[in-house]
């Protein structure tokens, strides 16, 4: 199995502070991976690098079968190449309806001219309705998304990610602020998604990670501390020190 995303030797410095230090990471095309690590371990910066928001000082980021380098692309190009990202706090377009949010995310041409002449076909409408149903917002389609509850916004954002049909999904703390039932739903959805694509979940909540039942990468001070099953890494002495030693 060749890797879908191959990050090697990446470093980032902010004003002398090394946020990411010689980090290497890879994930296969249909794999679920959890990234854990204490605050400041570089989890968010890692996602910023993969999605093009932050440029690393050195290292390479290779994506897909054609081994394209993500470092020469901007955020939009990376997203079009098939990398989706879900933020920690739900970010949806609050002045627009759920349907509009989903329609915008639908996989389709993204160039201004094509979008201007884009017409919603029956297939598109159906897809939007399917997605809404999948994330439990079927009866909320004409509502403005700003009026949704926090959990509903989370779901809407997950729905938008599904609509994008990415090949690699980066999910930042998906369970934050969710009820137990919602967490279970989320877990199931992430596992389901990982059947057809690569999913990277950044999470604090060990219980949630355990539920995902996948390979875990532990980040610490900008580089990989340990990698393996959750049981494996929790037995690792360094991991215990980092997590327990600092509380």
């Amino acid at each position, binding site marked *: 199995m060749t890797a879908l995303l191959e990050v090697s030797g990446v470093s980032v410095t902010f004003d002398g502070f090394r946020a990411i230090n010689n980090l290497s990471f890879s994930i296969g095309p249909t794999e679920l991976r959890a990234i854990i690590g204490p605050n400041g371990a570089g989890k968010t910066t890692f996602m910023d690098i993969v*999605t093009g*928001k932050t440029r690393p000082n050195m290292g390479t980021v290779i994506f897909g079968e054609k081994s394209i380098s993500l470092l020469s692309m*901007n*955020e*939009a*190009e990376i*997203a*079009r190449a098939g990398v*989706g*990202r879900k*933020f920690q706090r739900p*970010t949806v*377009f*609050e*002045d*627009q309806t759920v*349907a*509009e949010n989903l*329609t*915008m*995310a639908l996989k389709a041409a*993204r*160039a*201004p*001219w094509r*979008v*201007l002449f*884009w*017409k*919603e076909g029956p297939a598109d*409408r159906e897809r939007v*309705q399917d997605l809404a149903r999948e994330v439990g917002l079927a009866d909320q*389609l*004409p509502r*403005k998304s*700003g*009026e949704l509850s926090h959990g509903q916004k989370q779901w809407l954002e997950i729905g*938008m990610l599904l609509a*994008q049909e990415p090949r690699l999904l980066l999910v930042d703390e998906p369970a934050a602020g969710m009820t137990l039932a919602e967490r279970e739903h989320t877990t199931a959805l992430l596992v389901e998604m990982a059947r057809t694509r690569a999913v990277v979940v950044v999470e604090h909540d060990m219980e949630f990670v355990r539920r995902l039942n996948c390979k875990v990468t532990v980040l610490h001070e900008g580089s990989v501390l340990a990698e393996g099953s959750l049981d494996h890494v929790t037995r690792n002495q360094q991991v215990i020190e980092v997590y327990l030693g600092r509380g």
Partner: protein
Amino acid sequence: MTRHSFIAQNPAVLWFLLILAVFTIVVTLLSEAYGVAFISTSFVKTLGKTLCLCLVALAMDLIWGYAGILSLGHMAFFAIGGYMVGMWLMYARTEEIVVAALAQGGLPATPEEVRQGIATQIFGVVGASDFPPVWALAHSFWAQMALVVAVPGVLALVFGWLAFRSRVTGVYLSILTQAMTLALALYLFQNDSGLRGNNGLSGLQNLPGLGDVSQDALSVWFFWASAVALGLAYVLLTWVVSGKFGSVIRAIRDDEQRVRFLGYSVEGYKLFVFTLTAVIAAIAGALYYPQAGIINPAELAPIASIYLAVWVAIGGRGRLYGAVIGAAFVSLLSSWFTGGRAPSIPLGFYTINWVDWWLVLLGLSFVAVTLFAPKGIGGLFDLWQGLRSPDRKGAALGPDDSSLQEKEAVK
């Protein structure tokens, strides 16, 4: 969700076109040329110019209200449109006069003599007698009409590409557009800019070849043309903002970083909207200045573009009819006050003469609108329709500077 026709989704378009048509017919019937002469020709011109200002306000609303780019340079594009049409008008009109004058001389005029005569007539005022290179196409109506669109379009494209590429946003972009406008104005103020320095172009109200047609009739023709342009632009822009494209640009206004992660090239969209609105502004200017009769670099002053933003804000940004209402309301009110027709208010110790105090009133009421009624006049329609703003505890609808405010949104 069922599919609706364009008109059914946007009933405001029908209302707008209906009101515009009725207004046009009424003005025509009251005009001196085609009606009962109740409205003077100069007032017909004022109304026609107001329609052009409404048109440029529409463009401003698209770029600011929808895409969230507070451009302080769109009146520059408006003026460039006016300059482009003015060059042809002035050339062709002077040509008529020069040919007529030379025909008195006994010999038929050679093309060189005619050209020299026109150049002397036009540029004598800045002490030159040769055509500057920028006038190369001024003799051709179609070429110059193409330039009305092409020059502002290319300028907007180049400037926008530079600005958006380096991700200049928010107030920085506003200041940069303002600087661009100032640079253009200063350039045109020079005598050797080739556009007659601060004299500008004049006599634009006379249409070449239509010497027999009175200004009474011409003013109504231009009024019609302005009304048609406004109607067409309204339909076009409604179409632009109502589909997925509209969704994307409103999303850019509220949270452009998120739009990038959806795979849309934010810079491309901004550039598209910036250029499109620049072209619309230029067309508005090309219709405006033949009615005004004169254009000079003062029209490009950065302050004009800020006024444009003021109109849109007073009308209510993010709704196309708001921009039209704002521009019409403020500019007509402004000409009423500054025209000395508003009655003075004697206070005993001081008399408030509105010619002097109108700008103070405008400035302060604008502050009041920004503070207390961000929806502007358009908010009245929401009241009428029973639409309320959402209760968001003061939070805006997106993280960006340009995002919709709580009080601007509707539930």
